[in-house]
């Protein structure tokens, strides 16, 4: 049914349609509205049978999800930012044990400095955790990806994070088509676990594995993600057949065929990029976009195929590998190894800094001219940075950086008025 609704609410409805049996979560912005809505559905018994477990922390949330999944229940949780970091040990255990948990990550920056706004630092920090990561461009896609995620996770018996931009998507009201229960039931069969903790047929899960078998277990996690590279496009095609719309897949090209310059990005910023590209196309620029939906597994072959005929590309990412540059850019560069393609990295939108079309127009034109630095920080306030660097040159006791920058920018800081 077509609705005008909040992203979080739409995702909660989508999760409910997937018939989860155990939901456990600890509230953290900007994920809170999703689990609140699910909690209400469980309490009012509109989502039944399902147990909603209030836990005392994110570490407990993932631990409960692991226990529930090992007992054969379809398990769901959601988190963001520091919450994801707090559960990391259990995050690795979920994938290491091969438990098909689905978790929404409402992408948010990581502190310090504490910041509740959107970037991709949180889920990207779990790049190598063994979880698959799918990024939604719109709230419609967030709804649809969760349905595909349960199917894929359970087929492979591996966990998946569905990543959606915190606030920008979670708190946005927009048009969303919520599928019917029959449609979802037709796509997502009941969960048939590969391993179950059952007192009637006792087994153990989580054996200590020494050098004689560890490599094989880890390799199998990799092999499953390689299988996912095959399954993700097939599931997206099947989804389209049954639900009538494009959602998911590995990558999403937009005007890439004849493009000399291709912009690569993940998540909701793709919308602003496409609007910018439309305006530039109207002026005759040969520019296109490649959206990456599946960050893990990373679709090396599809990225290479989309870029092979362009002259240069820009990876615009809401994440920073401190001391290197781009995180997504590193993977993209691996995909184009040996092609001699010119690649640029643009770090944008950290901690919720808006990414306006005007900045993108400037960036993309500089990319066309190849006057960009290899790594560019979009809309960075160089004056503020230089002022702090100068302060550090002049004074040993230069003080806390975040407070200094806030003070320089004229934003009241507790430290200065305390």
């Amino acid at each position, binding site marked *: 049914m077509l609705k*005008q609704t*909040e992203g979080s609410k739409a995702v909660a409805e989508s999760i409910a349609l997937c018939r989860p049996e155990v939901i456990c979560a600890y509230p953290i912005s900007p994920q809170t509205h999703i689990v609140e809505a699910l909690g209400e559905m469980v309490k009012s018994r509109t989502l039944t049978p399902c147990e909603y477990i209030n836990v005392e922390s994110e570490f407990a949330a993932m631990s409960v999800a692991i226990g529930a999944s090992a007992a054969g229940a379809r398990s769901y949780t959601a988190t963001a930012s520091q919450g994801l970091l707090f559960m990391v040990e259990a995050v690795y255990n979920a994938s290491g044990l091969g438990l098909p948990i689905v978790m929404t990550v409402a992408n948010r920056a990581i502190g310090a400095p504490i910041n*509740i*706004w*959107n970037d991709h630092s949180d889920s990207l920090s779990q790049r190598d955790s063994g979880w698959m990561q799918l990024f939604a461009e*719109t709230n419609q896609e967030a709804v649809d990806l969760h349905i595909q995620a349960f199917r894929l996770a359970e087929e492979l018996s591996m966990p998946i994070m569905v990543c959606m931009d915190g*606030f*920008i998507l979670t*708190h*946005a*009201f*927009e*048009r969303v088509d919520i599928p019917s229960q029959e449609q979802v039931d037709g796509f997502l069969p009941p969960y048939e676990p590969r391993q179950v903790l059952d007192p009637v047929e006792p087994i153990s899960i989580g054996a200590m594995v020494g050098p004689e078998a560890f490599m094989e277990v880890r390799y199998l996690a990799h092999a499953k993600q390689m299988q996912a590279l095959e399954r993700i496009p097939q599931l997206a095609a099947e989804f389209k057949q049954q639900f009538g719309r494009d959602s998911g897949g590995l990558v999403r090209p937009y005007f890439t065929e004849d493009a000399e310059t291709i912009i690569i990005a993940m998540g*909701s*910023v*793709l*919308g*602003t990029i*496409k*609007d910018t590209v439309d305006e530039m196309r109207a002026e005759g620029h040969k520019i296109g976009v490649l959206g990456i939906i599946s960050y893990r597994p990373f679709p090396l072959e599809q990225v290479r195929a989309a870029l092979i005929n362009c002259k240069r590309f820009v990876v615009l990412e809401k994440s920073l590998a401190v001391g290197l540059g781009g995180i997504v850019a590193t993977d993209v560069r691996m995909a184009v190894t040996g092609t001699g393609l010119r690649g640029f990295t643009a770090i944008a939108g950290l901690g*919720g800094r*808006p*990414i*306006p*079309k005007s900045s993108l127009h400037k960036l993309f034109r500089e990319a066309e001219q190849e006057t960009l630095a290899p790594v560019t920080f979009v809309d960075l306030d160089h004056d503020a940075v230089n002022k702090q660097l100068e302060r550090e040159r002049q004074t040993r006791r230069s003080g806390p950086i975040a407070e200094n920058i806030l003070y320089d920018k004229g934003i009241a800081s507790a430290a200065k008025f305390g």
Partner: protein
Amino acid sequence: MFQIRIHGRGGQGVVTATEMLSVAAFVEGHYAQAFPSFGSERTGAPVVAFCRIADKEIRLREPIMEPDALIIQDPTLLHQIDVFAGLKEGGYVLLNSSHSFEDIGLGDLVKERGHERMCTLPATELGLKHVGRPIPNVPLIAGFAALSDMIKLESVILAINEKFSGKVAEGNIAAATEAYNLVKEQMKERADA
């Protein structure tokens, strides 16, 4: 695409106002997108929220920097931030005040921009009268519907019924209806003057 920016303070229902506007636009068959400015909102702190209305899918995710319409829920913000920043030429302004623009020292702005698209509305008073709470958001979106003709009063009422029920819904519908009529009267008086 038509872009609306709402300024107010935490607790005045600024975010809810944009959400309801988007619902009203949606029921008329438009595409609409509403989103807050994502601050750590506290009661009384300045809050901004945005609403876009268009006839095709809205992909743009930047904040609204050049609005076609401004709704100002709290006149004390005029002294604190530049609420008019980026307002397009010919843009609409709806201000929550029981005084005229001239009375609160914005006569020049009216001279510059013209009367046709600027209006004040005693929205807090309407909220108190009909809902018993000094929340100006619903009267203001109904006032905006009257000022701009972008959406119908019936659509605002549908959005109210989606958000509220019972007595609260009834009170809000009464407040919206009075606000709508007040703005229409003001505009008619000006057109006749």
